[in-house]
């Protein structure tokens, strides 16, 4: 077996030059000042590293007070959604080379949720909206002895929305949510979708009524920001449209 393309890439890896990149970070710490400020950090970094690596480099080598959430560092835990060059992304899934390191890279907290310190926001309103859509399987009658049966097609029907990691990148990219924090927001609707279209669930009507609320799906203006922002590639806007259609047709 030969893998010529790979060997070439590896050679590139080996002599990879470090570059100097500027990270322009929105700092806020009410213990220090009530005003948020932009602060520039210049660091030497391999452009194939992630924005999260850059933030760590700054925190560990330059300024220990820089504060952000992170855990798994590979796009599964949903801790490190932030606004990078004006777009919501996970810092651990964004390679520096992909966001033009020749210009200063801006990093700020996601919008629409209260900033508590630097890149850390209050997630509670986000999780409250999630809890409000009853995000758990609801069934009636006696439980079967073995597993419930579900065809591969029925399982596929809601596969896309099971991928959600509750990072809030979608909800905090939504202009409707920025202007009205009462709106459920895309993530909560995605998680309602996950159960409405699960053939085993028997509370679809109830969930639809919740989303029929004035702060529900009808607030969506189909701007597709959420779909662009989703680090898991979920077709968020499509899921919201499917919920709207289900509300009209009452078929799901």
């Amino acid at each position, binding site marked *: *077996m*030969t*893998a010529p*393309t*790979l*060997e070439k*890439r*590896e050679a590139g890896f*080996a002599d990879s030059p470090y570059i100097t990149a500027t990270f322009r970070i929105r700092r806020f*710490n*009410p*213990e220090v000042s009530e005003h948020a400020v932009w602060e520039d950090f210049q660091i030497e970094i391999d452009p194939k590293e992630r924005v999260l690596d850059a933030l760590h480099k700054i*925190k*560990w*080598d330059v*300024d*220990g*007070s820089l*504060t952000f*959430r992170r*855990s*798994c*560092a*590979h*796009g*599964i*835990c*949903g*801790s490190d959604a932030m606004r990078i060059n004006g777009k919501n992304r996970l810092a651990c*899934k964004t390679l520096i080379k992909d966001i033009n390191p020749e210009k200063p890279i801006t990093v700020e907290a996601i919008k629409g949720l209260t900033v*508590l*310190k*630097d890149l*850390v926001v209050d*997630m509670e309103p986000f*999780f409250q909206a999630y*809890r409000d859509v*009853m*995000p*758990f*399987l609801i069934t009636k009658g006696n*439980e079967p002895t*073995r*597993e419930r*049966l*579900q*065809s*591969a097609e029925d*399982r596929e029907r*809601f*596969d896309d929305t*099971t*991928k*959600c*990691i*509750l990072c809030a990148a979608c909800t905090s990219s939504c202009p409707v949510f920025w202007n009205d924090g009462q709106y459920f927001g895309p993530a909560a609707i995605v998680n309602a979708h996950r*159960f409405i279209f*699960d053939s*085993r669930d028997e509370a679809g009507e109830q969930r639809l009524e919740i989303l029929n609320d004035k702060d529900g799906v009808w607030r969506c203006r189909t701007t597709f920001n959420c779909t662009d922002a989703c680090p898991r*590639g979920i077709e968020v806007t499509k899921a919201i449209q499917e919920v709207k259609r289900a509300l009209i047709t009452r078929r799901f």
Partner: protein
Amino acid sequence: MKIHKYDTVIVGAGGAGMRAAIESTKRSRTAVLTKLYPTRSHTGAAQGGMAAALANVEEDNWEWHTFDTVKGGDYLVDQDAAEILAKEAIDAVLDLEKMGLPFNRTPDGTIDQRRFGGHSRNHGEAPVRRSCYAADRTGHMILQTLYQNCVKEGVEFFNEFYVLDQLITEVDGVKTSAGVVAYELATGEIHVFQAKAVIYASGGTGKFFKVTSNAHTLTGDGQAACYRRGLPLEDMEFFQFHPTGIWRMGILLTEGARGEGGILRNKDGERFMEKYAPVMKDLASRDVVSRSIYTEIREGRGCGPEGDHVYLDLTHLPPEQLDAKLPDITEFARTYLGIEPYTDPIPIQPTAHYAMGGIPTNVEGEVLRDNTTVVPGLYAAGEVACVSVHGANRLGTNSLLDINVFGKRAGIAAAEYSAKSDYVDLPENPASFVAEQVERLRNSTGSERVSVLRKELQETMDANVMVFRTEQTIKTAVEKIAELRERYLNVSIQDKGKRFNTDLLEAIELGNLLDLAEVMAVSALARKESRGGHYREDFPNRDDVNFMRHTMAYREVGDDGTQSIRLDYKPVVQTRYQPMERKY
């Protein structure tokens, strides 16, 4: 300082913690303390599946599963516990399905199953399809499903609360759990949680290695809190190195990739696992595969300019199969390596993955303070614990199983204990240890930096106590860790504030890692044999006469305040399987 009172307190909100919480909340007033948000826990990173002999797609039974678990653990497994694990696996999977977990399905609508390392039909005859899965994001689905059911049950969470101390009170001369002390990240406030029962479910310690699949937050906080209070840690020398981490980064690529037909190849394109494991080949147990990979690399058959990795080859699998069964890991290869797995093999190397050892418990999840005596009111489950169902090497898909089976058991046992017990008095000044630790760091002016010490620790662990160990390398690690512990006393932090002070918490986490790394290295030095994940080049054979026993490490503090580690040993519970030579 605030004082809270709960019947049951659970430390950690990953799979084991939330599975316990679902049981315990129904039976007792329960609080779950997590240093993250529940859905951020590292259970979510598990990929390949959860083992259970459902026999949905081919003949299987729990006895075969028990045997595979015992053999996989190189006979250091407590066989009574393994039998419970394999038997209760079936209900554990069905419970999750009923809670809503979207498993992949067979054409007839039942839960689909696939092959995984070390799982075999009829005691090693051939690979068997035992892993129940949801694409390559089974852990994600388990974590989400358990959180969803916690929401349904109204489980009370304290998010971003770091548990930093275990409180123990002597009641009639018996060491009894009195509660825990936690630090609230948002405010810097210290909280004492008085509880009748405490369950540790706080996960692993992988961050003392550099190349690891573990999250930044896996710093062994639960193990360290118990160890500092004089409780033993069991089998800490046994750490699993998963064969397929992304080269240099350590990000996990599931064994399910090989379960779906993926093949490991060296620089000559040779399927080298055929040499090392003629029957199970690429699906031999993880310790065997990781050693084989490093043997290839050491003998000059590694790939790349530095010959420091091998390939995971998926190129012969149909793209539709990769999309349907392995969507996440193929995306990792694209995102982090710029490689298209349809056409190019993926560079991989073994990655520090899982602690087989931990806080010793019996099969009810009760924590032991010596070989036999339980600590009333104290429980542990999941990776933080050592039951021991994994022995010297865990089989893939047995950890998602472990957290569900023993998380549930611990949740029920703890809540039942709470129901029949009274609160015990808190020790005097219960928050003093944490308060002093926090104040010392906040006022620190020393010249050492946390990130520097942590990096040196990780580098020495990777270099000296990884897949291959010798007396010489382990001694090097022990000496280095001692030096780092000394320098740690002189560490200072930059953020002196109270609000979201992650600088402070990283310093505390490093202290935990240093304590646990020392226990690991000292335990490894004393085990002069090779077994499962612990491979000594100077003692390459298993020695059942002298070492078929669990290590129990205790922290001792002398009259002059000097600390040392005392090692003791605990017999292995053997029921039906006699140790045999281990071949795959």
